[in-house]
């Protein structure tokens, strides 16, 4: 595990330095100063260690904590993808669950329903298929007006679900089961084993539970969590690299003022489609991992509600800021698991929270520094121009 981290660091550091020197101001916003590296490494290690530490307060008592962490991981991955679509490119996609489903179904079909592909071979296929579905949906619909896009994409999410339900080749209403876990890497008992901690009266003791590294069993979700966490880190790196480039700027410009972006030479349609495809691809990735973890998918696994939850995660976190989107996803996925006893009230509280949050923090809970400045400026403008009561 340390190897992965240090390997990542080795890979990231020169990139970050380059970004840092080339685009120093942006680097500062991201907090990528080299002094922060040790701290960051510790932070990432801590997150990797979460499922074996079983920290009190954070731990979910009523459900398997590593399973919860995996769920949170899928939400985070989805939020990262959706943040590209909504936050960067400004396209409101209410049918994101469709891509999630396409990813999951692709894996289901080739590993179980109609083939015995190993997961790591099915994964790239899932990416290609979801990316293609993103282009397929985007090409005709990205020309429609923004608010229509929301409804059209919502329709897409529903169409995917209904098609899956009515198509026997996709398992029909029964869905696809016995989707295999990813193949184990290394020997039967895992590369090595890591013991878990348990907490008695506030003191940690070593448990007899162990996690076999790179051994994807049914009971222990920890390796899945590590898989998705690693994926998340890779996606974040890719996200940073792309955001700090012409592509990121083109997205931002398109979001801010599409006409002007076009007049400044940005082929906006192409970039919107690119954002859609990239977002779809990441959504599909999350779906694929979900499928291999739960082993069973059916149409009701992908309700429209999930799309709305995804969007809510990004928006309440602060669209456009990847860390905000991640935190939003953690909140949306984790809190209901942590407070299961209030499960019935979940959606009600969630609805109230949505209204309250957007009413009082239009930029989301964790807007980026830039957004905060914009909000401040807008507020001043508002103060000066208010009173006109123009609708």
């Amino acid at each position, binding site marked *: 595990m340390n190897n992965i981290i240090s390997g990542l660091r080795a890979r990231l550091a020169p990139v970050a330095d380059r970004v840092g020197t080339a685009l120093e101001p942006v680097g500062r916003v991201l907090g990528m100063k080299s002094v922060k590296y040790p701290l960051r490494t510790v932070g990432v290690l801590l997150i990797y260690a979460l499922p074996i530490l079983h920290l009190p307060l954070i731990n979910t008592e009523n459900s398997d904590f590593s399973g919860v962490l995996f769920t949170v991981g899928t939400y985070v991955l989805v939020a990262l993808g959706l943040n590209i679509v909504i936050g960067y490119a400004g396209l409101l996609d209410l049918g994101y669950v469709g891509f999630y489903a396409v990813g999951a179904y692709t894996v289901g079909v080739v590993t179980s329903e109609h083939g015995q592909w190993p997961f790591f071979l099915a994964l790239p296929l899932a990416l290609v298929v979801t990316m293609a579905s993103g282009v397929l949906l985007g090409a*005709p619909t990205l020309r*429609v007006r923004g608010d229509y896009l929301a409804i059209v994409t919502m*329709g897409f999410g529903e169409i995917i679900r209904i098609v899956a339900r009515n198509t026997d080749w996709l398992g029909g209403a029964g869905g696809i089961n016995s989707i295999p876990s990813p193949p184990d890497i290394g020997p039967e008992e895992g590369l090595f084993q890591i013991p878990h901690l348990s907490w008695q009266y506030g003191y940690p003791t070593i448990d007899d539970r162990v996690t076999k590294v790179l051994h994807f069993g049914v009971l222990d979700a920890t390796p899945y969590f590590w898989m998705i966490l690693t994926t998340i880190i890779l996606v974040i790196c890719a996200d940073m690299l792309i955001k700090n480039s012409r592509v990121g700027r083109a997205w931002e410009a398109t979001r801010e003022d599409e006409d002007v972006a076009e007049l400044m030479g940005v082929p906006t349609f192409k970039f919107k489609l690119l954002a859609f495809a990239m977002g779809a691809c990441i959504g599909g990735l999350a779906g694929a991992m979900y499928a291999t973890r739960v082993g069973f998918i059916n149409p009701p696994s992908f309700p429209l509600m999930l799309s709305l939850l995804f969007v809510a995660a990004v928006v309440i976190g602060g669209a456009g800021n990847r860390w905000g989107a991640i935190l939003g996803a953690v909140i949306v996925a984790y809190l209901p698991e942590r407070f299961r006893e209030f499960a019935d009230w979940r959606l009600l509280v969630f*609805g109230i929270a949505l209204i309250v949050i957007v*009413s009082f923090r239009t930029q989301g809970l964790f807007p980026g520094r830039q957004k905060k400045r914009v909000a401040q400026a807008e507020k001043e403008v508002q103060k000066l121009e208010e009173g006109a009561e123009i609708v």
Partner: protein
Amino acid sequence: MEFLIGNFAELTITGLVLGSVYALVALGYTLVYGVLQLINFAHSEVFMWGTYAVVWVLTLLGASGTSSLAGAAGYLAIALVAAVLMSGGVALIVERFAYRRLVRQNAPKYIILISAIGASFVLSEIMGLRDKIAGFLGLQGVLGDYVNNPRNTSTLPVEIKPEPVLQIGNYMVRDTELLIIISALIMMFVLDQFIRRTSFGRQIRAVAQDPEAASLMGANSTNVVRLTFLIGGVMAGVAATLYMIKVGATGFNVGFVLGVKAFTAAVLGGIGNLRGALLGGLILGIAENYASGILGSEWRDVTAFVLLVLVLLVRPSGLLGESLGRARA
């Protein structure tokens, strides 16, 4: 296909019936969109609350058993009033809490949409958790039957038995179906006249066309927005009553699918255009019936979405274009 041809009259008539309900709900979307250029995602719940008003009032009045349409007319008239009050009231609440502040701040559209989605969750969950809420307030005993099993289907206490009155093709049209279609047409006509002829209607159109110029004329846009939500709510209340006459049952989650279809109907006809909402609703109702006749009923719900995508691609402004609001390229 054979099924479609053999049952053409029936599919068309029942399609029109369903389409009438879509059309009335679609009006709410179209009105709000025309004035604010926003999709009122919570409008479907406004309708859902209306259906419950119908159930509750009939329960309160002690209606029971089976009745003909004429026999239940008195009850239904009271239920209609209740539904209109309920939906209108809920619509005003939505405007007040999910919209007003954000609209004043000129918040980005997607933020307002999120707020409306939040309102939609709140409204359907309050209905779905009404037993717990009543318990929390200590009213469980008093409200009893009204709050039990909130997540199950609630049925109308009186079963309305439709009677055939008119033969078209090989289909006997029932009196309830006739009532629904005619009521929807009347409501549309009344609303159309209201918007066209009255000073309130003119204000709504003026704000839709040019809010700044309208306020220079002395239009109070807050009032206009409120009025717009209210009218949409009233129409949803009528739709809810008609829906209950036809379907006889409702649930805390009936709003969503119906709302999406009604919105589709509004876009289909040209959102912002009242007559477009009617046209779109009727077309959608019929199209759904035909599609399920040809492809099987499991494909019914896809029809709306496919139709929506096709219309937006071919004719983004909808069949009749946008006339309540500004014409846009």
